[in-house]
Structures are given as structure tokens and as C-alpha cells.
């Protein structure tokens, strides 16, 4: 596993690399070791410095700096919103809204704050607002039509994208797994989900998640533990074992 230990989330490329390398069982898991972690920490500190420099440039009116910030974080923020909201269209709106808020509130960013902490605080608040507005609705079923009243429409599970390039049977299997995973994540409480998603999809260290959520790092880890427990139960119930993937 190459999950970060401290500081800011890694650049997207690093995060994707981390995700592409599945963790093994405890005694076989790839270890980064102390030196590896130190190197990662340094990379992340550098990434933080870059973000801060870009944000300062943007505050001075350099829109190209903002373009770079957007390019660097768009995918992670989008995936955070997607997992929090469980709906691609809403996640697209959320991504747009988050970055537009950054644009409008750029003067409010204090140089002492991490850009990513600020960014994900905005994203989290936006997603929670959206979830609360929609709280009267039940958790979307993956098998129900995506839009109410649509008998023939695509289901939420079918709308989960990105199986291009896979063989048809593999793509179908991948879709099935994804659908179950989406449902499993949707079954988490908001508190558990935001911690899990920030860590797994945005690559944020627990310390930073704690700053965004406004609780202690220990509480964050405790929520993570319960989230994993619940996911494990949900996936087992759905007949998915870790060695399937």
C-alpha cells in the first residue's frame, strides 16, 4: 500500500498510481517503509507548496494558475463528489460549483491554509448541502429507474460509466462490481462516507481529513474503521469477495 501518511494529498497521477497497485494481504502487502514514506511526504509537501503558489498567483489575477489548479485537482474532486452524491450529473454540477466558489472566494483563502483542505471543505459542504436537500428521498436503488416515472430508463447501476476498453464479459463484470460498490458506499452514514471517500478517492491523509471535517484525527480513524466494517458486510452480502478483483 502506498497510502499517504501526512500532509496533503498527492497529485492525481500519484494517487492513480497508488490505486492501480492493489494492496495484498497483510504479510504480502507492498510496503513503502520509512524511507518511502519520507519521500512521499516530501512529494506531498512540494505539491502543497505548488498549490499555494498557484493560488497566490490566482489571487493576483493569473487565471493560468487557476487553470493549473483545476487540471491538478479536477479528477479527485469530481470523484469525491461522485461518491458522496452517488449521481454523475449531480457530481458534475458539484465540481463546477466547487471550482466556481474557489474562483469567487479566492480572496478569502488564507496563505497559511492548505489549498486542498480549503478545496475539500468547500466540496464537502456542497455535497452535504445537496444530500440534505435530497434527504426526503430514499437512497437510490441501483435497480430502480434513474429518473422517477421512467419505466424504461437506465438504472443507476447502468449509468456508472467507464468500462471502455474491456472485453464485453469483463466490462459487464466490472459494471456489476461497480454497481455493488456504489451501493455499498451509499449505505455508509454521511460521517463514515465522507471520511472514507476523502481518503480513498481524494487521497487525503487522516490529519487533513480531520481538519476538513472538524473532528480529531482519532475520530476520523474510528469512523474509517466503522466504514470498512460496514463495507465489508455489504460486499459480503452482495457476494463480492476481495479476491474477485
Amino acid at each position, binding site marked *: 500500500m502506498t497510502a499517504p501518511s501526512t500532509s496533503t494529498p498527492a497529485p492525481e497521477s500519484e494517487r492513480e498510481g497508488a490505486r492501480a497497485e492493489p494492496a495484498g494481504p497483510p504479510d504480502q502487502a507492498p510496503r513503502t517503509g520509512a524511507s518511502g514514506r519520507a519521500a512521499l511526504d516530501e512529494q506531498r509537501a512540494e505539491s502543497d507548496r505548488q498549490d499555494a503558489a498557484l493560488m497566490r498567483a490566482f489571487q493576483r489575477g493569473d487565471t493560468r494558475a487557476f487553470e493549473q489548479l483545476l487540471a491538478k485537482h479536477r479528477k479527485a474532486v469530481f470523484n469525491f463528489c461522485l461518491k458522496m452524491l452517488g449521481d454523475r450529473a449531480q*457530481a458534475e454540477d458539484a465540481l463546477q460549483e466547487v471550482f466556481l466558489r474557489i474562483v469567487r472566494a479566492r480572496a478569502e483563502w488564507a496563505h497559511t491554509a492548505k489549498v486542498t483542505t480549503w478545496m475539500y471543505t468547500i466540496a464537502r459542504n456542497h455535497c452535504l448541502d445537496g444530500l440534505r436537500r435530497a434527504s426526503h428521498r430514499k437512497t437510490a436503488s441501483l435497480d430502480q429507474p434513474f429518473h422517477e416515472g421512467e419505466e424504461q430508463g437506465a438504472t443507476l447501476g447502468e449509468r456508472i460509466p467507464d468500462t471502455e476498453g474491456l472485453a464485453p464479459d469483463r466490462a459487464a463484470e466490472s459494471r456489476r462490481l461497480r454497481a455493488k460498490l456504489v451501493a455499498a458506499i451509499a449505505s455508509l452514514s454521511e460521517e463514515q462516507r465522507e471520511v472514507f471517500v476523502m481518503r480513498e478517492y481524494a487521497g487525503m491523509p487522516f490529519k487533513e481529513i480531520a481538519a476538513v471535517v472538524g473532528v480529531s484525527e482519532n475520530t476520523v480513524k474510528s469512523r474509517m474503521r466503522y466504514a470498512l466494517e460496514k463495507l465489508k458486510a455489504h460486499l459480503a452480502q452482495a457476494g463480492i469477495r476481495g479476491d474477485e478483483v
Partner: protein
Amino acid sequence: MSESDDNRLVDLLYDELLDEDAAAYRRALSDDPDARAEVEAFEAVLRTVRAEALHDPPAALDARILAEARAVAAPALERAAARASREGAMAGARSRPGSPAEARGGLGAWLAGWLRSPRMGLALGAAAASVVAALALPALLRRESAPAGDLEPGATVVAPSVSPGPSASPASLEQPPAQAAGKGSRDAVRSGEALEVSPGPAKVRRMRDELAGGPAPSRAPPHTAPPASRIVLAEPAPAANAVAGASATRREADRAKRKARELETSLGGDALARLDADDARAGSAASTVGAAPPPEVAAARAPAGEAQKASAGAGAVAAAATPDPAAIADRALGEAKARSDAGDVDGARRTLSQALQPTGGSPAQGQVLLALARLELEQRRYPAAISLGKRAAAVPDFPGARDAIEIVEAAARASGRSSELGWAQRARRSLR
């Protein structure tokens, strides 16, 4: 399991334990099959989660976000430079000798800015009205027995030499002429509301009629369209407009005011005043297509009863010379961009406004409206941006409707107009 156990387990899963602590933990796991099985199960969950690739957001979103960023976060320095450049250009166009101090942005620039402020524009407009009245009244008194029509229209219009303030034109339409002429400029400025046009003294009424249409008939005439060149001569002076407007009936004047307000909203603040001034400087506005004011503007500026004729006339001129809406739009967009890049925002706005009528009813008009909306958004004229964006979105078959809605949404957010925001969201949903 205690919280510290939870934390250690999570730290282990995320490789956040120190090497020696992790090794000790794993040794402990090897002696506890249940605990080991639990850790393995969690790691299997994480494998499942991580097997899913991250999703890519649509690239089109970036374009929208960046457009907003550029619009909202234009560098302050650039804006200041553009403003200075624009003011310099306006000063040059008004044939005012540009002083070195103004060029440097010193006291002269401050004074010029103060003189061009809306308040000063109103005051100057009222002062101009007073000057017109003061000059014209003795002449009229002398002409008590002279045949009507001796007074040349051009001769009475002193105001072209008076540069109108940015908001002079809309204000002048509201300014009751009798009040403007009869009261001091301070009173005229204070009077925000147009008052009922009451019949003044006979001499004033005659002067007013002559300014409006030449030889004075015995009663205020129904509005006859003056020749185009006459409109141009009469337009630059807000006071002259006010006096001319006084010959309208109350109803007609109200209509003209409404039209002016609509245009003020759609074109943005002081656009009309600037269009007036620029057109006046052009000299013979109606003689060439390029200098012709947009029909909507012509309609609003003409005394109320002449609005339709002016609109039809300008539209006809434009339509005769420019048959292809797409070509007109392309040309206007190119020219507007060049002007905007050079800091001449008013020129860009004017160019685009002039392209509205000849492109009317085609998707090309949508392009022009969209560009205008974007321009107004950049200038933080949110109501105008909203109005133009909505008009663009409503153009049939316009492929940029989504962009137009985005602009409405951005302007609505920036100005805190929740109803417009709701409109934008509904419109966007309907596009989907």
C-alpha cells in the same frame, strides 16, 4: 475493540505505523487467526475499492469553469490599464487636448474622471439645458414677431460641444424639460423622477417645439420624424434631448422612458449615453451603415412618437447593406474582440449592439447576444448579462444556448438573484 485498537488497525491498513510497530502488529496477528482474518477482509475491501478506476469529469466542464474564472478574475492591473486606455481613447475622441498629466493618470486624469462621473454627467446635462434655454429665450423673444421657422435647427443645438456624462441620456429622458430649463442644475439633479409635463409659458413652449421639429405649430405637434441628420445633431446634447422630449405627450414620453430603461438594462448602464456621444461624433450617423445606431437605440433615443419610424429606418438601412446574418455576426464578433482586447469595451459593446438587428431571428443573433452577455458579465453588469443571456438562450436553434444559460447562472450567482438562478437551473435541465 478500543479506539486505540481501531486507530492501530487503520494505521496498519494505510501503512501509517512506524516500521517496528507494524512488524510487531503483524507478529501479533500471526498468533491470532481471527484478528488476521479481519485484517485480511478489510484489505480485500480496499482492493475492491481500489480496483475501480477514477472517473474523468467531462472536459466541457473545464471550459465553463475557466470561462467563469477569466470573467470574474480578470487581473486588476489589466482592468486598470484597459480603463485608462479607454478613457484616453474617449478623451481623444472628444477632441479634448490630452494633457500630459492625464496621460500619466495624475490630477488631470482624476479631474477628467470626476467630470465624467454620472453625477457630473447629470449636472452637466442640466447645465446644458440651462444654457440652451438662456441662449434660446432671448432669440425667441426677438422672434416674437418673426415668421416661424427662422430658427435653424442646427443653430439652436449648442450642446454637441458639451460632452454628455455617462448616464446623461437615460437621465435626460426622465428630466422634465421645464424643470431642467427653469431650475438650477442642482435642483435638476435632485429630481430623480420625471414630473408631469405641464404647459409652460408660451415662449418656452415655442422654443421647445422648434427644437423638436422646426417651425412651431400652434400646439405641441404630434411627433414627426425629423431627418436623420437632424436626429444626429440633436442627440448629443442630453439637455436638447430633454427639451425635445418635452414635446411628447405624457404617454409617449413614458413609452420612450420605458424603452430607454429596457435598453439600459440590456446594454448596460451608461451604454446609451456613450452610444449617443459616439454617434454624434461620427457626424453623419445615418449616412453609412457602420455609423448607424442600432435600431433599438435609435428607437429609444428618438422622441417617443418617432421610435417606430426610427427603428424601421435604421433597420432598413442595416438590412439593405448586410444580408447574411452569419457573416455580420462573424464580422461583429471579430471587431468586438479586437476592440475588447485593445481595452475599448464600449466600442466592443457598440459593435455587437449594431449587429443585433441585422442578425435578428437567426442563430447568429444568438452568438452576438452571447458575446454581449459575456462582455457584460466581465464588466460585472449582472442584470444586463442576465437579460442578454436569457435572450441568447431563447434564440431558436442557437447551439450556444447552454453557454448562455451558464452566463445567466454566473451573473445570477454573482448578483445574488435567486429567481434568475432558478431560471438558469430549470433551463439547463430542459436542455438535458
